[in-house]
């Protein structure tokens, strides 16, 4: 299975090389921080948590939600998600690893980190966070790996695996809730000390994690042969839409409570992030553009998401998901942590901004996560594609269209050599040919060998049974004849297979 990770084309290896460079820069910066202490960061006596803990907080959300959206696939046998489940879990695992690394780089004495387990203190929320995060990492890796192994051998899931999957769902919610409690439980920090913390976290997470999942799936669709199916992506998009609206709603509820009741100790933090704090003629407003950018991006994205036509339009989806991701990253990351410290508990306003080493270290940690995800996803894609190739006739989807059950059977794939148009039954054959005839190394044979689109594909208009050879034609027909908007033409135009 693991061999898929080292079989890749030029694009794959350049991507890996780029990530390794980013990680190396982060590593060097971390060495510098380790030698000189956390003074190399922008943190201070007043603001003692910053970019690292912000990223940690945000990534816990990604970790939890990337998994939760795909779990229905196991539980309810929701077939459309079949291909994305493993991706969700691997994304979750990569995110948890990033979370842990962010905590580690934030510690003053990383050499003593094991004290958390050697001298556990049951009254500290951090202990529970540690337990839930490590447990979650284990669960994800075990589940995803076993599922892949089964898929490779084309077996059904065993009972113990199903039990683990059941455990994983509440577990995912728990990592998020416990992390929210980390902040929400502090009596001395009015900015965090609200019961809305955990629900707000969950909503933000369910918007950002699935967005990232969608973006990664779209990238995979574009650059690999792996196709999770647009239907699955669309379904995840629905989750993002609901969650983003809930997230904004909760932010609104928070703002109303704070501004209408106007308790000064709550208010001052919100004044700081939204308008800045005036002292004499100077306005401390470093976070004002940050928060407004996040809010505006979030609102635009939410509006685009709630309109089904816009949400389901593949052109916009990557874009809106990107906006959601950035908006939530800003708001649930630094935007949640830093303002909790400004003004400080003794009323001093000291601002914070990450330094260059601090930013490089953070980038490096992201690099580690992305590298892990890339490699894991590569394995998953490899196994999935191989599986598709071996199986002669795979029953892909069971779609219920107007109470008529239709079975769409996917044909075995064909591969075409781009250089001489020869057609082969399997990728390996084509690769061999490319090596012999065109001197293309096997590792990069994906440059020469492409999947040949089965020519038999046809689209049928459900409303009048007219048949077209391509989807666009069918959509145009649907618009002209049946007044169905193009964006929703997938409701009428279905794929048919000719016998």
């Amino acid at each position, binding site marked *: 299975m693991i061999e898929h990770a080292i079989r890749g084309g030029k694009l794959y290896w350049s991507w890996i090389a780029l990530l390794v460079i980013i990680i190396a820069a982060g590593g060097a910066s971390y060495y510098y921080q380790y030698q000189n202490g956390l003074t190399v960061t922008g943190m*201070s006596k007043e603001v003692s948590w910053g970019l690292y803990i912000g990223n940690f907080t945000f990534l816990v959300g990604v970790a939890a939600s990337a998994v939760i959206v795909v779990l229905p696939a196991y539980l309810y046998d929701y077939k459309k998600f079949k291909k994305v489940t493993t991706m969700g879990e691997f994304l979750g695992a990569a995110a948890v690893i990033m979370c842990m690394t962010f905590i580690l780089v934030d510690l003053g004495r990383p050499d003593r980190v094991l004290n958390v387990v050697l001298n556990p203190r049951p009254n500290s929320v951090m202990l529970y966070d540690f337990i839930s995060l490590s447990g979650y990492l284990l669960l994800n890796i075990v589940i995803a790996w076993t599922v892949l192994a089964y898929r490779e051998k084309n077996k059904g899931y065993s009972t113990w695996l199903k039990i683990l999957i059941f455990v994983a769902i509440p577990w995912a919610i728990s990592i998020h809730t416990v992390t929210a409690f980390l902040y929400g439980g502090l009596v001395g920090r009015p900015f965090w000390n609200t019961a809305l913390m955990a629900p707000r976290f969950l909503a933000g997470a369910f918007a950002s994690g699935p967005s990232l999942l969608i973006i990664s799936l779209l990238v995979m669709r574009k650059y690999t042969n792996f196709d999770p199916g647009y239907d699955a992506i669309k379904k995840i998009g629905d989750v993002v839409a609901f969650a983003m609206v809930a997230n904004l709603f909760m932010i609104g509820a928070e703002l109303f409570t704070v501004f209408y009741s106007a308790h000064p100790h709550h208010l001052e933090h919100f004044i700081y992030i939204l308008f800045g704090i005036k002292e004499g003629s100077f306005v401390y407003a470093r976070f004002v553009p940050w928060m407004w950018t996040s809010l505006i991006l979030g609102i635009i994205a939410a509006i685009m998401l709630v309109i089904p036509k816009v949400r389901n339009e593949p052109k916009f989806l990557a874009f809106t998901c990107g906006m959601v991701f950035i908006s939530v990253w800003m708001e649930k990351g630094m935007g949640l942590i830093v303002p909790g410290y400004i003004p400080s508990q003794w009323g001093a306003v000291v601002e914070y901004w990450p330094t260059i080493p601090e930013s490089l270290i953070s980038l490096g940690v992201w690099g580690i996560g992305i590298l892990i995800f890339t490699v894991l996803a590569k394995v998953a894609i490899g196994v999935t594609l191989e599986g598709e190739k071996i199986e002669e006739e795979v029953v892909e989807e069971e779609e219920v269209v107007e109470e008529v059950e239709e079975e769409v059977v996917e044909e075995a794939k064909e591969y075409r050599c781009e250089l001489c148009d020869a057609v082969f039954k399997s990728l390996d054959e084509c690769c061999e040919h490319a090596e012999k005839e065109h001197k293309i190394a096997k590792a990069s044979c994906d440059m020469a060998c492409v999947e040949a689109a089965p020519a038999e594909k046809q689209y049928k208009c459900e409303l009048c049974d007219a048949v077209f050879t391509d989807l666009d034609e069918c959509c145009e027909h649907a618009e002209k004849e049946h007044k169905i908007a193009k964006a929703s033409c997938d409701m009428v135009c279905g794929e048919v297979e000719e016998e």
Partner: protein
Amino acid sequence: MTGSAIATITLTASQVERVLAAFAAPAIDQQKVRWGMVIDLKKFNELPLAKRKRVYDVCKEIHNIPIFPTAKDRVEWIWPADFEHTFPSQFNHFLPEEIENLEVPVLCNHCENPPCTKVCPTGATWKRDDGIVTMDYHRCIGCRYCMAACPYGMRSFNWRDPRPFIPKLNPTYHTRTKGVVEKCTFCVERLEKGLQPACVEASEGSFIFGDLNNLESEISKILREHYSIRRKPELGTEPKLYYLI
């Protein structure tokens, strides 16, 4: 196998008790010593500047507290603050000038119900039986959760190696490493020798230190006879540092 299982269960039971204890405000035990401090702000502010400064400096000297060139890295156990920011809920715009302009020394309140010890994941900071909130610098992992939790900002982190910045090393007291949190300990090392905390000794009688559980102690009498205030009492942390105004 069974033995270790039983050990685990007993361990968990005692831990459950500790969790519960951590969430409930502890009952005040009248039998034990419970150290507390009163700062008489009027008396303190009548002292000349040099003497007031001595109160802060003596702490720095005996505890090997580093003096960093950059403000953001600073480590402090006791420092001067103003009335408005120390007592935000007591402040109003018609305060007599002499109160508004008071110099208020702030230090760890040694809360009876300390939020900082509640959150520490390693037990590197805890409340002793005599009510002093103390630190184990060898156990602290530097997560700074306690700094997030203290509602008064009384904890400092060693953002960099403090040793090169100690003006004059006191060989009888320890130094800290970079990456750990520290704060005022009510001079436990001096109390063990039967001495008063250093700031109290230098304060010319404006700081009063003693056993809050002993009704006959000076501190209890003063608190009974005068109106005192504490920092953010509404948070339920029960500071054991009282101020007379």
